[in-house]
């Protein structure tokens, strides 16, 4: 079994704490912070997949889109929702091409 010091540096564990803490935070936060936390978690997950050599160029593009546009939630609600639609469209392309 791994020790605790290793565990808290593990990217999966970091994602786990992010998800649970976000779940509690979303109870009191603005409703669009829910989608923000989810795409932020998706970004963290893609980074883990990258480290494990599991990504493809298309997924890297999604990561870049998230990093570029996730903060729109703070400035432009409409554009943020449009960006979420774009992300889904990109995912569909990946799945359809399989």
């Amino acid at each position, binding site marked *: 079994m791994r020790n605790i010091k290793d565990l*808290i*540096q593990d990217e999966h564990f*970091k994602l786990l*704490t*992010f998800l649970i*803490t*976000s779940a*509690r*935070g979303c109870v009191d*936060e603005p409703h669009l*912070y829910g989608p923000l*936390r989810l795409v*932020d978690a998706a970004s963290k997950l893609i980074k883990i997949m990258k480290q494990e050599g599991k990504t493809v160029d298309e997924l890297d593009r999604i990561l870049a889109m998230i990093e570029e546009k996730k*903060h729109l939630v*703070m*400035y*432009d609600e409409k554009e943020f929702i449009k960006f979420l639609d774009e992300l889904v469209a990109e995912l569909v392309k990946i799945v359809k091409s399989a």
Partner: protein
Amino acid sequence: MVDVLEAIKGRRSVREFRDGRIPDDHLMTVLEAAIWAPSGSNAQPWEFVVVRSRDTIEKIKLFSPGLFGDPDALVVLCVNKERVKGRGPKELVAVMDIAMAAQNMMLAAYSLGIGSCPIASFNKTAVKELLNIPEHVDPILMVSLGYPEKWPEPPRRRPLEEVVHHEKY
């Protein structure tokens, strides 16, 4: 140092930081700006926990979904409830005091070329436990500090004509 209005208009919420250690005296200037904020009944209900240890910042990040980037320092702004006890409905006023102290900090930081971001999205219970914050002290807000990777563009402001009401609403 920059003009006050220039600092007010130039400050941005910075969420990407480059490497670079903030000199201790600059950090103290930022904290000194905080203690000169106004406070209801001059209660000065604030306590500031300054975190510079990379290890501790990483632990706090685990419980702070609103903390983006890798700041050089974190300041956790807390209300000392003992200082507002017996002063009537002061909880809300104390939170406003913290907000004013935070704004002072961020403007002072900007004037020194330091980026900052106010963060309310963190788990207060977890941060309290990690930093050994006593029962009668509540963390309210965090401010991340560091040198910006870039200064973000200014977001749109609601125009004066929309928000200012002269003489009556």
